[in-house]
Structures are given as structure tokens and as C-alpha cells.
């Protein structure tokens, strides 16, 4: 998994590529934690995300809770496979997927 972050004012865009699973989810969690401060809009770009597991979903849920208090979080460019995971777990109702 690779993480690329771009800060534009108070908007942080994070491009996550590869696999977001049991081993890589803690890395994304740590990376987001250190960037939350002062952010009002968090954009997660999943264009190149090939795999998502429940471990990754938990990181998204935690991030969503943080951003609910200080702004908004959106997920962009979700492919069909990843979207299926959001649907079967009910995360489509919790997350903002564009």
C-alpha cells in the first residue's frame, strides 16, 4: 500500500493505492492521525485501491468520527469491488461516497 497526501489550505487529499488490509491498515491509521489537526475536509481517493478488508473499514470509521467533529470526509473514485464491501457492510450509509 502507498499513501500520498496533498494539503490544500484546510483540505487534505489522501490517495491510497494497493491493499488496505490487516497489515497495512495501522499504517494508514497512523498517517491520518498525524494529519487531522486543522483539517476541515478530508478527501480519500481510492482510485488505485485494489483490496479493502474490515481492518481498513475500521480506520475509515475512526476517521469519519474525527471528521464529523471538525468538518467532512468524502471518499472518491471507488471501484466496483470496493463499493461492494461498503454495501454489504452497510458502510454506504455511514460514509460519504462520491
Amino acid at each position, binding site marked *: 500500500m502507498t499513501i500520498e497526501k496533498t494539503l490544500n489550505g484546510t483540505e487534505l487529499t489522501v490517495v491510497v493505492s494497493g491493499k488496505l*488490509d*490487516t*497489515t497495512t491498515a495501522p499504517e494508514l491509521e497512523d498517517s491520518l492521525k498525524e494529519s487531522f489537526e486543522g483539517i476541515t475536509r478530508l478527501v480519500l481517493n481510492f482510485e488505485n485501491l485494489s*483490496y479493502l*478488508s*474490515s*481492518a481498513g473499514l475500521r480506520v475509515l470509521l475512526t476517521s469519519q468520527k474525527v471528521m464529523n467533529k471538525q468538518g467532512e470526509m468524502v471518499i472518491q473514485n471507488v471501484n466496483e469491488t470496493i463499493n461492494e464491501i461498503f454495501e*454489504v*457492510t452497510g458502510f454506504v450509509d455511514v460514509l460519504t461516497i462520491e
Partner: protein
Amino acid sequence: MITIRHLKKEYANATPLKDVNVEIHKGDVISVIGPSGTGKSTLIRCINLLETPTSGEIFVDGECITDKKCNINKVRQKMGMVFQSFNLFNHMNVIENIMAAPMDLLKKSKQEAYDYGIELLRTVGLADKAFNYPDQLSGGQKQRVAIVRALAMEPEIILLDEPTSALDPTMVGEVQAVIRDLARKGLTLMIVTHEMRFAREIANRVFYMDEGGVYEDGTPEEIFDNPKKEKTIRFIKHLKVFEHLITSKDFDFIGFNTDLEEFGRRNQVAPKTIYRAQSVFEELAVQCVLPKLDKDFKLNVAFEYSQEEETLFMTLKYDGDTFDVRNTPNVISFAIAENASESIEYAEIDEDGFKNLVTVKIK
């Protein structure tokens, strides 16, 4: 007729037979099947003492042939042996090859041995080759002569060690026809073979060999249509298997997934199916089962792929308390796994220390 008890054959770096216990009855036609290196040939070579067993006992008609006092030559007269590579004497013609042992060991006269040899050659359609030398014969003809040579000793049982595997495919049929004929005549036969259709059609019993012994013994219908044991099922259904034993919560997850992908590539499993398999493994095994296991645990993961049916199954076996993974409180993981599966079944077991079995058919 033949009773084998605790037969073990050990070599310096391998033990093909660990503990074989079987009874062979008069008139049995036994096909011996199984993966390479599981001791099939070693077993029949031990029965006629071409290999000396490391331990255990073999009784032939009540006589213990593994006893040092036993007259081996006398015992061998009761058993004919047919080898993969024919083993005919090239400096003797066909009829001489057939007559040698009956004259030497059964003390038959030259005429008797000749007459019976010709009679037998006629039954396999080779009477006109009696004076030919082995190198003037095709592979199929050589093997038919080798069978006649075994029959000439009027044995009680014939042991055939892959009798058709060295033959050109066009000649397999003629040799199989001869063996089929022997079976019909009521001879006791034991045949090591890789030809499953033949193994099934000719035998009244099938020995599936694995794990150093006769792993499953049954009728052809039982072994080929309804095998009971795990390794027999894998062998009969040509299952490709990827198996891994996990004993630490810090196991190499990335390595496991890489190996699973490689297994998929090697066996032409659809990438989407492997993706789902990885998802099911991660959600059920890593997220639901692992946290429930004690410090010292074992979790066996096996993926079995049938190329014929294009189906992939994952089985998880784990020790510890009884835990039906379908009742996991981790509903998110289970929902993801369920979405990637056709079915998720659970059973309590008691097998090699494992208490729980989860069987998943991957979508």
C-alpha cells in the same frame, strides 16, 4: 491368503511404508493407487521380498515369510511378478524366457514347460512369437510375454508393478486386455497403476496409499465415487491444494497472501476468485478465529481447487474451545466473508487435536 501386519520399510532418507495392515483374500483383484512416492511399488516389492521389510510381518497362507527361517524361493513360487520394464532375458528367446523358471524351480520337464508355455502364449495371442528374441518385440508384446512368464509358474497371486506405464499409449490396451482376462479367470492380482479408469474397472478392491500405509481401502465404487477420507478425496477429484499451518498470531500474512496468489496463478484460478479467497481468509481466519485462540494454538488453512468443476473451497481447522465462526460478534468481517462465499459451514470435530472445522465454498 496374505496377511500384512505392521509392515514398515525404511530407507536412509525416506520411510515409504510406516505401518501397513491389510488382508488380501484369494480371488481379490486389488488396484493400488495413490500419489508418487507413497510406497505403492515398495509394498508389492515387500510382499515378494524383493525388498526386505524393516519390520512387521507378512503371512502367506499362514506361513510367516518375513521369518528368517522361511525359504524365500519357495514363497516366491507362489507369487508372480510383472515389472514396469518387463525384465526379460534378452539372450533367450520368448519360449526360453518362459520355460526357464518352471524347469529350474518346479522341476518340470522341457516338454511340459514348452507345452504349457505355448498354451499360455496362445492365450495372449503370441504363440507365433515363441522363437523371437525380446528385442524383436514391441513393448506391449514384451509385457504380454512377461505376464506369461509369471503365469508359467502357476502362482497363487500375481503382483504387477505399473505394468503399462513404460508402454507407448497405443500398446496399453493390449496389455490391459490380458490383465483383464486374468482377473476374469479368478486369479488373485495386485496391480500398482496410475490409470484410474483401468484401476476402477478391473478391481474388486482399491487400496489408496498415502501417509505411509493403505490410507483408504474399499470397493472401486467406495473409493472412486464416495471416498471418505480427506487425501483420497483430493486425489480422486484431482484437487490442487494449498495448505498452511498457522501457530503464531504474528504469522507472515503478506507471505501467505503472496503464496495464495501464486497458487491461483499456477492452477489457473480466476483472479477474482483468489481475491475473494483472500478476503474470506482475512475476515474469517484472521479477524474472527485468531482473536479467539489461546497463546499456544494451531490453525490449519487449506484451499482446495477443482480444475474440473472450477470450484475453490477453503477449510479452517482450529483447536481451543468450540467456536462456531458463524456466531462471531464480528458482524462486519462476517458480512464481508459471507458476501464472498457461496456457503459457510461449521462442524465440531475431533481430529489431530483440532476441534473446529469451517468449510467455505468461495464464490
